[in-house]
């Protein structure tokens, strides 16, 4: 459905990602895994179209484009939770890209938002200010916004960070269900265990793609060492 080909991203002299080629398919729940600074978020940002200099490395299947089908869920802590909006308002923001200019939400949009909030279990909190929510509830609200957008391609940046164990289960089950319904779900995470339990496609990244395949193919001691220890070596090398 979507992928990147030979993507190399540099920030100044530092190489964030070198020669990466990956594909994400409909009906698949993929996880991009790696240590901090491994280029995971860079890969995600490229897919979303936030690095316009690298847009030519992104490959969409015919009939798809970033604007028409991507739902993006940013890292929770990048948002301002003191912003004067309620749970309902945030979920309704998912409709903004769909509605377009000079169109206002109608009954159908309200039904979609209501359904999304119920599915993620925060409908009862819909009138609350977002600042009054726990980390897990915030993530549920962001997922509701993602559902309300009704994209075919769901991209999530660290959805498990700052979320309690019970909510983690709910979130992963919900994402799994989205993939089973034919959507392409891609999450960036450093939680190898959760990814292995729920995903059917793992990509290990550390400034390049170390391994790419099913959990059985990818989850080997050798691959994991290569992913998580070269980062350490890489760092000392870069600092020296």
């Amino acid at each position: 459905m979507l992928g990147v080909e030979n993507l190399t991203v540099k920030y100044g002299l530092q190489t964030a990602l070198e020669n990466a080629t990956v594909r994400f398919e409909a009906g698949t729940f993929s996880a991009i895994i790696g240590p901090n600074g491994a280029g995971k978020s860079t890969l995600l940002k490229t897919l979303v179209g936030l690095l316009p200099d690298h847009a030519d490395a992104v490959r969409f299947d015919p009939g798809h484009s970033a604007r028409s089908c991507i739902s993006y869920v940013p890292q929770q802590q990048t948002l301002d939770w003191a912003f004067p909006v309620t749970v309902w308002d945030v979920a309704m923001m998912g409709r903004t890209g769909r509605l377009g200019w000079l169109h206002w939400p109608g009954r159908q949009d309200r039904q979609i938002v209501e359904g999304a909030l119920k599915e993620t279990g925060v409908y009862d909190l819909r009138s609350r200010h977002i600042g009054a929510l726990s980390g897990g509830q915030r993530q549920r609200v962001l997922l509701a916004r993602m559902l309300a957008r009704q994209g075919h391609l769901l991209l999530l940046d660290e959805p498990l960070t700052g979320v309690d164990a019970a909510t983690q289960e709910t979130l992963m089950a919900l994402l799994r269900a989205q993939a089973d319904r034919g959507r392409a779900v891609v999450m960036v995470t450093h939680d190898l265990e959760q990814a292995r339990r729920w995903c059917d496609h793992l990509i290990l990244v550390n400034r390049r793609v170390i391994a790419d395949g099913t959990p059985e193919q990818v989850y080997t001691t050798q691959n994991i060492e290569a992913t998580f220890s070269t980062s350490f070596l890489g760092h000392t090398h870069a600092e020296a």
Partner: protein
Amino acid sequence: MHLLTDPLQFAFFNRALIAVVLVSVLCALVGAWVVLRGLSYIGDAMSHAVFPGIVGAFLTGGNLLLGALIAAVLTALGIGAVGRQSGLKQDSAIGIVFVGMFALGIVMLSRAPTFTTDLSNFLIGNPLGVTPADLWGALAVTLVVGGFLTVIQKELLLASFDPTEARAVGLPVRRLESLLLILIGLVVVLTVQLVGTTLSVSLLITSSAAARLLARNLKKMMMLAALLGTAGGVTGLYISYYANTAPGATIVLVNTAIFLAALAFRRE
């Protein structure tokens, strides 16, 4: 009761009251976005940067609003261009452009025959000098800006709360910001009349900042900001009438006091 009704026998006082209410509503509409997007510094810059536009219009007998609008557009574009060309951070670009524009305004004004009184009017403002034509202008600007903001509200909301998602769905985040700058410039022209360039950013953001501390959603925040701004403006006018103080600065002081009260009483 006489305390309240006495000043109302003067037409200039009534006009000042109406102007204060109109500008408070306008500032609430625009100020909410300025506060939410962290553009207060740009607001301050804008209030100084439209100065040469106002002076130019004043010296040539042109329309002050139009002069300020041109200066606002030039400044909004200039800040972007300086930032891009020089690679400097945005705050440096803003600093360079707005001080330069302000100095240009003062140099232009120093060529005017009645330099000192006019300068103090521009810098400090005088709500008691508002003319009926000014009021119609203020009403027109309020309607235009209000209409604009209503039309692009859901886009502004997404671009302000989550610029990343906004760019992902294809909203022109930068152009929205430039538009906001131009609207700020328009609002500043009206506030200049009341409190002068140096204090106008106070009207733009203080009530909105106070409202943000108390309100749960955007609509309530804007309504509360309009209410607090109106209350502060009217109270300030009366105080200045009886205490014989500079009205613009008195209004700003009352607004500041309201903000401090909101800070003290906000829900945890």
